[in-house]
């Protein structure tokens, strides 16, 4: 196991901070494999110095996009620019990108120091400068003194750090990471997420990160690009992606949610079971998205509260899950709502009442309305 130093801050020296942060501009990027569009006319602007996550299910095209930025696959059409310089035809070794792979891909026939020194050696940086830059990088990832170790003497977390050090030691124009934490166990992964975020803040290098883990994306990113079926579905901050999903796919993929179809009343407003939910534009179906943790158990009195929408149902099940309690409420035969309530203090109104009638409340400011019919 890793031993973790008590402080989280990475030591970063001046030479590493000089890393220039370039924006990445992607226009109209298309890649087809036979009849399947792995990327379908993707436009994406990665701001200089930001941590942007490509989030999507497997097969969504997120890795294809990352590999296109790295130069390992050649899109059929489109443009990729690093700070205004077109790179789409440049081979990977001319792009100056630091890359971290899921498998780490450390070189087992080299020591830790030689692994980190590899990109420096290729750039003709030798002697004391190479040694001192390797030292700096090791220090940055908190592995000082590990230089002479062999790769097989390192734990998973340490390998991860070496792969990281090797990727930024030469001052790449952008840093690319392909699910770099997925091989670590949960605790270590969550720890590394925070560390990576810190490291990014210190280095300030434009970073594109690929993951299928929505929680990881929410934790680490400045902005999240949600990708599905080769298309960019939404590009927004974690908070906005979570609170204002663009469509049913995003609402369903990120966080827990229940989708409730809305109907229009006589005045054209959107309602759910005769409760006014909101206004919306012309045509189409609209769906109400509710997050379990934004729902709460209420009482009949709450119905008079203007700020709250109250639904009546039957308590089906209450499951204790440690940090919270999951309560399932049947609105009527087929619609079931999940409500997540805290377990601390006096909050335990659900237990023992299975089969009884309950009221569920949702604050109007937590209402999410998305276009389209019921998803899936």
């Amino acid at each position, binding site marked *: 196991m890793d031993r973790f130093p008590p402080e989280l801050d990475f030591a970063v020296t001046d030479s590493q901070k000089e890393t220039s942060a370039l924006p990445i501009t992607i226009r109209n990027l298309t890649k087809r494999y036979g009849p399947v569009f792995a990327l379908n006319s993707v436009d994406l602007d990665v701001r200089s110095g930001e941590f942007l996550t490509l989030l999507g299910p497997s097969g969504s095209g997120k890795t294809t996009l990352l590999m296109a930025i790295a130069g390992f696959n050649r899109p059929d059409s489109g443009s990729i620019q690093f700070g205004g310089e077109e790179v789409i035809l440049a081979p990977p070794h001319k792009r100056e990108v630091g*890359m971290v792979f899921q498998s780490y891909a450390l070189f087992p026939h080299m020591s830790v120091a030689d692994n980190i020194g590899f990109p420096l050696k290729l750039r003709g940086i030798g002697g004391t400068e190479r040694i001192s830059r390797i030292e700096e990088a090791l220090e940055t990832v908190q592995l000082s003194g590990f230089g002479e170790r062999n790769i097989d003497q390192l734990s998973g977390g340490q390998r991860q750090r070496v792969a990281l050090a090797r990727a930024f030691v030469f001052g790449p124009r952008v840093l690319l990471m392909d699910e770099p934490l997925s091989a670590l166990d949960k605790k270590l992964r969550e720890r590394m997420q925070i560390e990576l975020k810190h490291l990014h803040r210190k280095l300030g290098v434009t970073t594109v990160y690929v993951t299928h883990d929505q929680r990881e994306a929410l934790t680490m990113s400045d902005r999240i690009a949600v990708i599905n079926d080769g298309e960019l579905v939404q590009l927004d901050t974690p908070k906005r992606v979570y609170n204002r999903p663009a469509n049913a796919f995003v609402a369903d993929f990120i966080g827990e949610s229940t989708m409730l179809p809305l109907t229009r009343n006589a005045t054209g407003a959107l309602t759910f079971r005769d409760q006014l939910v909101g206004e919306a534009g012309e045509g189409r179906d609209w769906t109400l998205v509710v997050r379990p943790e934004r729902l709460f158990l209420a009482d009949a009195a709450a119905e008079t509260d203007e700020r709250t929408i109250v639904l009546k149902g039957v308590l089906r099940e209450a499951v204790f899950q440690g940090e919270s309690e999951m309560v399932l409420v049947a609105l009527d035969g087929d619609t079931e709502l999940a409500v997540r309530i805290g377990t601390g203090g006096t909050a335990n109104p659900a237990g023992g009442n299975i089969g009884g009638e309950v009221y569920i409340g949702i604050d109007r400011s937590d209402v999410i309305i998305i276009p389209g019919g019921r998803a899936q």
Partner: protein
Amino acid sequence: MNWWSRPASDTQITHGGRLWLYTLAAIIMLLLVIPTLIVVPMSFSDSQYLEFPPSNWSLRWYEEYLGTAKWIRATATSVQVGLLTMLVATPLGVMAAYALFVSRHRATKAIFLLLITPMIVPVILIAIGTFYAYGRVGMNNTITGLVLAHSALALPIAIIVVTAGLRSYDLSQEQVARSLGANRIKAFFLITLPQIRFSVITAALLSFLTSFDEVIIAIFVSGGANATLTKHMFAALRDYIDPTIAAISTIMVILSSVLLLLTQFLGSKRGGNR
């Protein structure tokens, strides 16, 4: 519990129950090895003829071998052809194995089969075909001709050995190397080759042995000053029975065994590294 009633492995079957299998395996191994080993005592015989067991012991046939210019020249030819075959077949085998391993092209399976046909087709057919083809271009009895023909035989072995080595190699290392600034050639030589080096060395040794032990093609396309050791041995066996053959065979068996043991050793060393 004694050995007899102890389980043979992670099963309920005891060593006693496995006895028939051990016996069968021992018989098969003996049958494989005895024909090879029988020449060893024969080579130390004092007799004019191949004799087993020898009635008197002597080293005269080793002296005969080392003292005859014809044998020494043939040995030199065999070693030369073997080394050249190794130098031709190993790089080609590595290149082919790498290309087939990396490529996602549909035709890779077909190309692989094509490349290993020399292993499938009876060698006598290759020998006859090569003989007539070389007759047209005047390459019979030349070192070049023999090296090329032997390389065709050694190539499939080299490809298979190197492919096996590549299977346990993580190709994303090469991608990392390229992202870090190495072009494909550098990435291959600095990252991939050092890690498959044991397979490459094994392929080289087996390529040498394939040529050094080969007799059928040599009979057809080698001759004159460029006749190989095996061709001379075959001719000697046909024309006059002489224990020199046994002496040479013994030397060849030892050389081949050492090389094969070397490849095994390298293989287990690689296993230990992982």
